[in-house]
Each structure stands twice: as structure tokens, then as C-alpha cells.
């Protein structure tokens, strides 16, 4: 079932990051209702309605410039709101929702003189006191987070001297150290090899199972089709589809999204999107992937 983004039933109120209203849907974490946002008077995302539940793992796909990053920024309240409502509903005991944002690696200044540990400490800039040097407990916490992500031995290393996967884990650690309610990752799997991509998705799946809500944007259609239960398709500055991979990855929606014909192959629970249906050199034998395996089963990463 494909539902337009407007078809949102959760209640919301026009207050950003306010205390949880008594009438809210229990599971709702972030609610966008007919939201239009942009920058400097220019609309970048229009008429978007979306309800994100607690502990959900959502993938956002769409062409470059379609508004994926703006969607993340809108949720964090960093885009100018022109119309509609954005409601962030913090859990009990917190005044505001805590976000952990992982930017695109392409936006990082890799020559900046900073180590892995210093990057991660920035995620606790407010809690770790005013003194320039870190406190013992903060360094211990950084060590724990780095260990959790498998890069505990890299704390003293300069960020330029890391592999693609280690770089992603470093910025993921910065996001996690603030104990976020929602992780927002902007194309965490771009520019990394297939093994690193698998490792990152596996790691995110583990975090999600531990209760962390996640939204990630990506161009890896087959990756998110295999790993996620819910996808949102952004095109022409709005959300055009929201549902399971099977609901979102149809030839018609993909044509509207990317402006090109795409082939969708289904085998069991597995879905594969091929870019050029007329190409004779395409591998079209779905048997090459263990269909129905844990990797292809959307429930693997389910919360």
C-alpha cells in the first residue's frame, strides 16, 4: 500500500520541541504535518507529512538535490519553516528531543587538526564543562563509545588517517555520545566499499535494536531494500511515497523519482532495482543473491 505523505493520522501541535502533549500518539517521536521549509525565502521541501515512531529505522531515498538533506535539517529545526507543523516529542524525563547528526563525509574538512577522541568529545561539548581539556569521566565515556563501535584503538589518531568505515564510525560515535533519541545520518554509505557498507548497515541495525531511532538518506536502493522495513521517497522537493520497500520500489514510483525507467525484481522478500532494463549485460539472475536469507529479509533490522 502506497500512501501519500499527507495521509498522516498522528496528532500534532505547532510547537517545536515542546513537552509531550497528553493526547499525542504514544509511539510518535517526530511528526511533520504539511510542512514546507526552505532557506532564505526559497522553498526546498514542500507539503511534507511524515510520522516517525519511536525506535523506527527509516530510509530516505531520492535523487541528488531532491530535498533529502533538507528533510533531515527540517526535523532538527534547522530549516526555515514557511508552512505546516513540526512536532518533536521527547521521551519522558527530557525537555527536548536529542538528535545525533552524522553529516556527509564530503562536508568534513579532513585536514583539520583534530583527533578521533576530540571529534567525539564535541558531541558532549555542553556536558563536559568549560575547560578546554577533557575531564577523566568524559574521556572514559569516549573510550566506551569507541569500543562499542570497534574503533577503541583509534582515539589518538588524526581523522585523515582513517579508512572510510572508521571515519563513519568516528562521526557516529560523536552522535552517539550525546545519548540521542534519534540518529540522523546523511548518506553514511556513500563513497565506501561494499564490505564497509555492509558493516555500517549492520552496526546501525544493532544500534536500532538497542532502541535508537534512525533516519538515513542514501542512494543505495538495494541496500535499504534489503535492510529496512520502511522507506520514504523524496523527489521534486516533496515526499512522493512512504511505505515498505515493496510498496515504494515500484517501476512507476521509481520513474517519477528518478525520471528513468527501472526494473524491479522480486524474489521472496528480496527486492532488487536495476537501472537499465534494456541492457543486455545486466545480471538479472536473482539466484546470485541468497534470496530469502537474513540479509534480504526486512525484518532483520526491525526494532
Amino acid at each position: 500500500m502506497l500512501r501519500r505523505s499527507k495521509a498522516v493520522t498522528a496528532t500534532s501541535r505547532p510547537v517545536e520541541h515542546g513537552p509531550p502533549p497528553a493526547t499525542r500518539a504514544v509511539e510518535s517521536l517526530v511528526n511533520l504535518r504539511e510542512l514546507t521549509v526552505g532557506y532564505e525565502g526559497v522553498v526546498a521541501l514542500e507539503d511534507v507529512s511524515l510520522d516517525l515512531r519511536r525506535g523506527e529505522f527509516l530510509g530516505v531515498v531520492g535523487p541528488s538535490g531532491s530535498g533529502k538533506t533538507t528533510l533531515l535539517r527540517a526535523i532538527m529545526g534547522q530549516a526555515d519553516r514557511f508552512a505546516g507543523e513540526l512536532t518533536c516529542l521527547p521521551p519522558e524525563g527530557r525537555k527536548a528531543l536529542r538528535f545525533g547528526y552524522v553529516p556527509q563525509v564530503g562536508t568534513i574538512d579532513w585536514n583539520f587538526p583534530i583527533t578521533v577522541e576530540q571529534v567525539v568529545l564535541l558531541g558532549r561539548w555542553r556536558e563536559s564543562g568549560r575547560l578546554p581539556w577533557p575531564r577523566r569521566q568524559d574521556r572514559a565515556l569516549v573510550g566506551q563509545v569507541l569500543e562499542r563501535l570497534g574503533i577503541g584503538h583509534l582515539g589518538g589518531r588524526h581523522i585523515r588517517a582513517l579508512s572510510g568505515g572508521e571515519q563513519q564510525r568516528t562521526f557516529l560515535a560523536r552522535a552517539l555520545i550525546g545519548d540521542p533519541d534519534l540518529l540522523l545520518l546523511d548518506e553514511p554509505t556513500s563513497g565506501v566499499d561494499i564490505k564497509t557498507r555492509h558493516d555500517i548497515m549492520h552496526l546501525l541495525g544493532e544500534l536500532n535494536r538497542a532502541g535508537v531511532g534512525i533516519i538515513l538518506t542514501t542512494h543505495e536502493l538495494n541496500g535499504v531494500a534489503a535492510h529496512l522495513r520502511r522507506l520514504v521517497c523524496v523527489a521534486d522537493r516533496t515526499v512522493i511515497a512512504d511505505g515498505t520497500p515493496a510498496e515504494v520500489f515500484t517501476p512507476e514510483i521509481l520513474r517519477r523519482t528518478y525520471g528513468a525507467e527501472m526494473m524491479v525484481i522480486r524474489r521472496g522478500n528480496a527486492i532488487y532495482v536495476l537501472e537499465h532494463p534494456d541492457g543486455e549485460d545486466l545480471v538479472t539472475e536473482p539466484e546470485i543473491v541468497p534470496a530469502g536469507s537474513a540479509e534480504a529479509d526486512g525484518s532483520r533490522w526491525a526494532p
Partner: protein
Amino acid sequence: MGSLAEPFQFEFMVRAMIAAGLVGLLTGLVGVYIVLRHLAYIGHGLSHAVFGGAVVSFVTGINFYVGATVWGVFAAFLINIAGRNRRIGGDAAIGIITTAAFAMGVALISRRATFTRDFEAALFGEILGITGDDLYVIGGVMALVAAVVFVWWKPLLFTTFDVGVARSYGVPVEWVEALFSLVLAATVIVSLQVLGVTLIAAALVIPPVTVRLLTDSFNRLIILSTLLGGLTGFAGVYFSWFVDVSSGATVVLLQAAVFALVLAWSSLQAQTRGGRPYAERLANAGRQLIGGELADASGNPRRA
């Protein structure tokens, strides 16, 4: 040895060396943030903008620091606001606002022929005219900037490293940027009399870039760049006594010489970092060129 201590026998030279040392500390410290923000041009631009304020101060007869501060802070805020407009960009905003402010100063001076001397002093600095009050002002600004950097260390580091993400982590980016604009304007203003409009940019950029060649640590960069700025400021004025060259120019030339040495040394280090020393690799290249055998130190032939 007596001649080496000669500069210390004159009070104006002692004041000049202290002033240049303090300004060096200040520019070395603030310069780290300038270089890491890729704003090397802003020091050059802002010093020209402040020049406009200095001229207005002369013309209207108000205190230099008051006029230059109002003008400099106003220019810094205008740059900040215009630079945020994506269709203008930071570099173009600096180019427009600072040159316009400088042009206003030039226009005012051209109407008053008697300002020629002041004009030159503002352009190239007049460090030997530093008074005791000037030292208090420079020292006060230095202490204030050091306190700001110390207390706002983390927000400043975060916004310098990644301003877009800092906002999502709750850093009050607008406040931090405004504070940095104030710090920068104050730095340029107190440096104007020591280094002059034309040389401030170099003092802001050379020490951090030099130290950056030696360290990947932000904390070490801050400390060493500040110390290098202070040391070269003090030593530059000291040496200028003997070489009879403009003090500001001597400071900058000394910094440039240190930069050249460090660049040469770090390049050599980079060559050897691959495992084999540079000299060995050069010898290997030579062997390959002549394609034969070379004798080792004992005179025994060995294969290349």
C-alpha cells in the same frame, strides 16, 4: 654584548618590543581560527576597513580606538551578515565591504592633504610611537581575547570545525560567530598601530600556517602558534633596530623566514616518511640512472 643590549636602553624600543610581542601573541592565537576557517583574506580586508574608521577618527577628532572599534565591528558584522547570503558568499562579502570602507578612508584623506603622515602610519604602522596607554589597551585586549578563547573553547572549536553540524548539537552558532567577529575586529584594531594595514594579514596567517606544518593537534597548534607569534613579534622589532628596517616589515619577514625553514624541513621529513631516507632514495635513483655499480663507503663495489 653591549651593542646587543642597545635596544633595551631606549624606553620607546622597550615599549615597541613589548607591544609587538603582545600583538604577535594575539595574532598568533586568533590567526589559528582564521586559517582553519579558510578566512585568510579576512584579516587583510578587515584591516583595510578599520583604516576607514581610523581616518574618520582623525577627521572628527575622536579617539582612534573608539572610531576604529565602531567602524571595525560594524564592518565585521556586515561581513558576517552578507557572507551568510549564499548568492554572495563570505569571500565576496569581505571584498565588497572592506574595500568600500577603505575607499571611504582614502576619499576623506584626499580631501585633507595634511594627513599624509597619518596615512603612512596607518598603512605601515608606527610602532615607535607606542605609548604606555597603548600598551595597556593592547594588553587588555590580549587578556580579554585569551579569556574568550579559554571559556568558549569548545563552541569555538566546534563552529570552526563544522559550523553546520555544530548548530544541530545545540551550539549557539550565531552568538559564537558574533563573538568571533568582535574578537577579530579588536585584534585588527590593536594591531594596526604596530603592524599597519598592509601587514596585519601576514601576522594573522603565517604563525598558524607554520605550526600547522608541524602538528596535527589543535591544542598544540593554538599554543605554539601563539608563542611563535609573540616571539617573532618581539624579536622582529629587536632586529629592526640593527638592520634599520621598518619594524612591522621586519616582524613579517622574520615570520616568513621561519615559515620557509619549517616548510623546507617538513618537506624533507615528508620525503623520508615512506621508510627509506630521502638521501637513500636519491642514491637509488642515481644508481638506476647510471645503471651500474656504486662503491660503498669502504670502497667495495655493491649492486644498486
